[in-house]
């Protein structure tokens, strides 16, 4: 008689937030969440990080906005989207009925706009946390953003943390000389967690036309191509920080996600995979559960930080 495997405990405790499982959807790759309702049960996700939100609606970059590269995708969307008022009026009421944690990715053209977004959202109900997007490479020239220096990271995180009534996750840029220094600055400023990595600043060229393949010239590289870099950065940061790390970068399978947990991430975000398979995040949860069951792992949290380096 076959032995029924014990159910695997998938629950994930970030300290400030308890999740059904460690899989969140990465901002900018899952729209406002509702786009995916026809394709998967959103209640099966650990949580949704909705598309980056500025105070005012944003027009975004001129096309072409996407270019495929080997095992990767470079995007230069430019954070087109609705502003806070339309978000609160049209999107948030729909998100509130979902039985999953909703995290808003908070953006700003300057520190005051970040603060204004948080101040506005603090008056709304139904959100679990904020993900402070200090690292989008597609908005200013040559990928400039607060996440490029420990000083600007510290100042912004400190200000937003003090202003916010909700937990704060700071999303870091890989386009830096030392991501550990930036992560430490965010931790010192009081962030409740860090999320990494955002996309890697990149470009693609059309040889015949001698033109960049993106309207914005530069964009952010995502997909399986960046996973090894993301793993390395997550491992470096998780080894040195006390606050939880949320890992992302090219996660396509449950095995990929479990590697991030081994490297020290307490949870993961699934990004580009959702473009190819709208139900990828739920499949990844299932694959993680099956791996744990097959390896006698009772709780997925027991995988976190178990990488053997000696």
């Amino acid at each position, binding site marked *: 008689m076959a032995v029924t495997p014990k159910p695997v405990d998938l629950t994930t405790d970030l300290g400030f937030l308890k999740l059904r499982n460690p899989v969140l959807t990465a901002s900018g790759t899952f729209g406002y969440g509702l*786009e995916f309702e026809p394709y998967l049960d959103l209640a099966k996700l650990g949580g949704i990080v909705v598309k980056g939100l500025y105070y005012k609606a944003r027009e*975004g970059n001129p096309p072409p*906005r996407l270019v495929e590269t080997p095992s990767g995708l470079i995007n230069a969307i430019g954070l087109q989207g609705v502003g806070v008022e339309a978000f609160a009026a049209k999107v948030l009421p729909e998100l509130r009925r979902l039985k999953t944690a909703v995290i808003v990715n908070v953006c700003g053209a300057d520190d005051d706009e970040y603060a204004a977004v948080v101040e506005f959202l603090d008056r709304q109900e139904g959100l679990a946390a904020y993900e402070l997007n200090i690292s989008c490479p597609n908005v200013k020239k040559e990928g400039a953003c607060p996440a490029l220096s420990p000083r600007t990271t510290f100042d912004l995180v400190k200000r937003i943390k003090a202003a916010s009534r909700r937990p704060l996750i700071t999303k870091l840029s890989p386009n830096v000389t030392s991501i550990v220094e930036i992560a430490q600055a965010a931790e010192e400023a009081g962030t409740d967690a860090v999320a990494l990595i955002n996309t890697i600043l990149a470009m693609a060229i059309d040889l015949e036309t001698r033109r960049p393949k993106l309207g914005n010239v530069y964009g952010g590289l995502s*997909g399986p191509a960046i996973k090894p870099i993301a793993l390395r950065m997550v491992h470096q940061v998780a080894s040195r920080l006390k606050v939880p790390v949320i890992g992302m970068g090219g996660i396509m399978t449950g095995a990929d996600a479990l590697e991030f947990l081994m490297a020290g991430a307490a949870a993961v975000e699934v990004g*580009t995979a959702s473009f190819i398979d709208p139900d990828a995040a739920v499949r990844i949860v299932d694959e993680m559960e099956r791996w744990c069951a097959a390896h006698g792992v009772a709780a997925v949290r027991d995988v976190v930080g178990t990488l053997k380096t000696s």
Partner: protein
Amino acid sequence: MTIERNARLREVQSWGDHFRFVIDAPAIGRDARPGQFVMVKVSEGSAPLLRRPLGIHDADAAGFELFFRVAGQGTEILSQKREGERLDIIGPLGRGFTVASAAKGRTAALVGGGRGIAPLFFLARALAAAGARPVIFYGGRGLADIPLRDRLEKAGFEVRCSTDDGSFGFAGFITALVEKELARVEPAVVYACGPDPMMKALAAITARHGLPAEFSLESVMGCGIGACWGCVHRIRNEGGDGWVKICEEGPVFPGERIRWP
């Protein structure tokens, strides 16, 4: 919308680098409307990473058809699929052409440039079923670019062909043929799918003649379901011009709303 992971490729027909696939996928076929598209996974690995958007060429209760030309890595891999293989397809997606009941007894001009003919066969069938008379204008650079002309004629449609090199039909751009034939055909509405320069020229012609027209736009797409905001085109809205997602609000737009580059 359905994710059909096990759609059977029932039949493959090819003409050089043009391919027609007949695919068993009842859930997609039943819901499909002319002008909608599907997202096809061409590879299980990450080469290429993204699905490919392809217009629905025809559909019925058993499934749907695709017609495409090999234009890059994705369509190259797709073209090598064999009858009986299984395909992973999401669809039907997007907003298609308007087939108004008012079309009854009226003539519609359908203008397809090259592989842009793909969605117009399905549209012509729907228009004919609604009692309209579709006249199909089908253009290409040369004879090899208009392989569907026999299929269109056998289906009973009036077909007017053009080739840029004069190897078949009217010698010149399809838009010149349309303009030349307008007085004779007297369409009440114009539908088009093809390269942007063709559609831009046609938009100018239809605007000049005060003809309602709908255009199916094409773009690289990240997801096809409105999540990535990668496939935008400049579109006139109530509040002014903006970047609008082709996959979600389109791919078909009324001519007067489209801003051509």
